[in-house]
């Protein structure tokens, strides 16, 4: 094994690897590196690890997952390999159903095995639905293995790259003629066109189109929104295709990841924000903390978003101008906000059975409604009719709220990062009122049961979770920022133009969503890179 020489400023402690940022990807990466025999230090700016997978008390006694609020993309293999179960991860709600809320009192279940509510609306849709789901699942299953690999580089002589491209091609070919043709046909389409081909029920189409636009800068009529849907389904398929809630919220997942890391020998320091990455002889040599302390390491892996990593922590002067131009062009404008409500009773949604409250509720009556909500955000305006993805974690997990009380956690789209007129401070109260009123149309009486309310705009998410633009994925997930061009060519294989500096965050392949795969892939690439250098040196 070849360990790169580390010779930064004298005195400071020395590690093989420093991971900047203790988000879930940072912790996953650190654990795999430590298991690979490296001494690893994780530096987290906040007082606790976890990044956007965090649990927070937003009102006395009421706790909520402050950013991501569902565990549904982390592969079962990763959970197993890291023994997260033995490190304290306990799932309180599994296979959570998804229900589309309806103002007229007839909500729609999206459970394929439970087609009753769909049959009541359209027998044709009830017939088409299983076909649609099966086909998209075949596509996503074919795409999924791509998530686990380091994206191949284009136009190189490397067998590694050629093999990866060949595998990708074979996998698509393996779908067979009909399915492959269909995948190529729909791959760049907008999700509304696809859903219009299959279905007639507006509520069903809205619920299915919801996942295509959630967390993205897309409306249902945006080209490429089928791609984002397949992408999400592919990630979910490795996670068992199930929505889950960890006991104690997403922070508990981070707690388990941290325990797994420590168990593997990782040293974690919180409250240790990094000021910049040290460069020596044109390679990463460690970091300097905001406190002025410097720590040496031969390899630095950044869990921060690409813009922060390259332009703030490293600095343009260590990079080529063309590369910097590409980094500045990475799109990362968040459009998703979080709403947290402390409630003194369980809300009653029109026509909804109590059993459905342990699942995921979608508020979006039609694709047109979603598109109209999106329209406003394009111009920096607040939509008067936003869309919601709602969970009530306290239903399954009593630790989240005082006895008899409940918490509601919702992702709200489309809330612009920056308003065209005025700042968020003037509009915050208006936004909170608007969101509660909108929910009130579906759950009369909700307003009266609100004890406390908190809204986190993309700007708040940016500040709190240190994500440029407040975007969950650090970089928009779209065809042009995907696989070997994510986040930018030249940094799409986790290594960067600066030797010894790697990326492991959501801005890299295959993206965020509390998946952890980017962290695992990055660790593999770090270990592989050292092996290659070792062979060269030998």
């Amino acid at each position, binding site marked *: 094994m070849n360990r790169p020489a580390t010779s930064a400023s004298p005195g400071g402690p020395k590690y093989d690897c420093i991971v900047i940022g203790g988000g879930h990807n940072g912790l996953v990466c650190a654990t795999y590196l430590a298991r690979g025999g490296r001494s690893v230090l994780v530096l987290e700016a906040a007082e606790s690890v976890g990044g956007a997978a965090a649990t927070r008390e937003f009102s006395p006694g009421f706790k909520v997952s402050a950013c991501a609020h569902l565990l549904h993309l982390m592969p079962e293999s990763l959970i197993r390999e890291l023994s997260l179960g033995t490190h304290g991860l306990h799932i309180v709600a599994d296979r959570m159903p998804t229900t589309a809320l309806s103002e007229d009192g007839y909500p729609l279940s999206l459970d394929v095995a439970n087609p009753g509510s769909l049959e009541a609306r359209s027998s044709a849709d009830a017939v088409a639905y299983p076909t649609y789901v099966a086909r998209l699942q075949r596509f996503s299953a074919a795409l999924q293995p791509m998530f686990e690999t380091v994206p191949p580089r284009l136009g190189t002589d490397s067998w590694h790259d050629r093999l990866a491209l060949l595998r990708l091609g074979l996998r698509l070919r393996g779908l067979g003629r009909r399915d492959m043709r269909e995948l190529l046909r729909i791959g760049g389409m907008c999700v509304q066109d696809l859903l219009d081909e299959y279905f007639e029920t507006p509520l069903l189409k809205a619920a299915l189109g919801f996942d295509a636009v959630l967390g993205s800068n897309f409306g249902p009529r945006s080209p490429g929104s089928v791609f984002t849907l397949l992408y999400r389904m592919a990630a979910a398929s490795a996670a068992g295709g199930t929505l889950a809630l960890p006991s104690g919220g997403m922070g508990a997942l981070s707690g388990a990841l941290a325990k797994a890391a420590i168990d593997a020998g990782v040293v974690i320091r919180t409250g240790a924000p990094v000021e910049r990455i040290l460069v020596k002889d*044109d390679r990463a040599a460690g970091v300097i903390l905001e406190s002025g302390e410097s720590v040496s390491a031969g390899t630095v892996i950044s869990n921060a978003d690409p813009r922060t990593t390259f332009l703030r922590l490293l*600095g343009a002067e260590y*990079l080529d101008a063309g590369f*910097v131009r590409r980094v500045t062009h990475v799109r990362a404008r968040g459009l998703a906000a979080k709403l947290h409500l402390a409630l003194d009773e369980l809300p009653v949604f029109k026509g909804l059975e109590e059993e459905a409250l342990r699942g995921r509720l979608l508020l979006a009556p039609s694709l047109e409604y979603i598109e109209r909500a999106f329209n406003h955000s394009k111009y920096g305006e607040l939509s008067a009719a936003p869309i919601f993805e709602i969970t009530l974690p306290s239903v399954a997990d009593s630790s989240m709220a005082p006895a008899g009380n409940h918490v509601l956690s919702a992702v709200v789209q489309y809330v612009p990062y920056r308003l065209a007129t005025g700042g968020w401070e003037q509009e915050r109260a208006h936004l909170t009122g608007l969101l509660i009123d909108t929910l009130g149309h579906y759950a009369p009486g909700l307003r009266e049961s609100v004890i406390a309310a908190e809204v986190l705009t993309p700007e708040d998410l940016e500040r709190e979770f240190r994500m440029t633009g407040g975007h969950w994925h650090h970089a928009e997930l779209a065809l042009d920022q995907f696989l070997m061009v994510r986040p930018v060519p030249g940094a799409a294989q986790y290594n960067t133009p600066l030797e010894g500096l790697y990326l492991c965050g959501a801005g890299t392949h295959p993206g965020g969503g509390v998946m952890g795969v980017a962290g695992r892939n990055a660790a593999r690439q770090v270990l592989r890179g050292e092996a290659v250098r070792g062979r060269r040196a030998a």
Partner: protein
Amino acid sequence: MLTESAPHYRQPLLKTPFHDRARALCQVDSFIPWAGYTTVDVFTTVEQEYFAIRNSTSVYDLTPMVKYRITGRDATRFLNRLVTRDITRLRPGRVAYCVWCDDKGHIIDDGTVFRLGETEYRLCTGERQLNWLLDSAVGFEVDVAEVTEDVAALSVQGPTSCALLKALGLEGVECLKPFDLGYSHLPTWGVEAPLMVSRTGFTGDLGYEIWMRPGDAERVWDGLMEVGRDRALRPIGSRALNIARIEAGFLLPNVDFVSAEHTLRVGTERSPLELGLAWLVDFEKGHFTGRRALLEEKSRGPRRLLVGLDIEGNKPAHNALLYADRSGKRQVGSVTSATWSPTGKRNIALAMMDAPHITTGLNVWAEIYLNRELVWERRMARARIVERPFFAPERRRVTPPAHY
């Protein structure tokens, strides 16, 4: 109403502040476009103008050179990351010839960097570069502004140029060493603002460049013509200058290389190592755009190299293909610039050669096409790889220059 000065679609080329004066002296009415301006190609005859460069003094309108003003706290760091040379070693009052590359180490353009002050520079280039400069400015506290139209310039070159400028009244010009810049006044010619004078040029000879406000341009021109009347001073066009620059071994963008930003075909980009400009690349100064790619190229060895050729006969080898054998079966390169060198009495050329064939003294064959009263003939001429520059008189360096 249309005015002469306003650019218009029917008059797409701009006129420099010297245009009226030049037109009056341009006997053959030979104008060519250059960087958006109409400029003189030939005033009288190319030969007369060329010999003014080498034997007395020539005046060339340099105004179309694209000029950028670069200021700000990080101006030095910005330029040091932009170009391949070490700008931290360029003192205020000095000028440096530089190239800059894209990420792959391919040349975007060459130009001169004038350090006007601690945090103020002027960059002169052949092509417009604002886009690349602004992209390169990300992360630096620096202002980049194009000032092409705000600064008029004349290049005064030739063995008697220093004496002529002294006679004009530019005090202290004889103290300028090569690549120095200084300031002087010309109150006798009604020029109140200080003129910037730099000992720079594109002829490989003794010479200076005078940088002025456009409003002073005609007064400076008139002064030069007046003082130069008895000193064989001649205004020259681009054609004569081109002969001198080939003799000096200087490269012309879009002739000897194409900017990496403009190439479409793979393999037509050129790196500074390939253009024989390795001496401009400082790998020790820290990072600059293209450094990692150039390091790799250096360790791999360049695939081709720009060389100087001495070709038998007296027919310029314009665009000639070069072969390893007289039969012309194995091509090993091609000529980018060619001229008969009147001072060297040699038939010279700059050529791009494939890597394994580059050794000084090596013979290759140039395929020259001759037009003999519309009857075309092909001639295979022996060509020898020789050192550049082809012409480098001692007077270009001597300070103070000889007084005439």
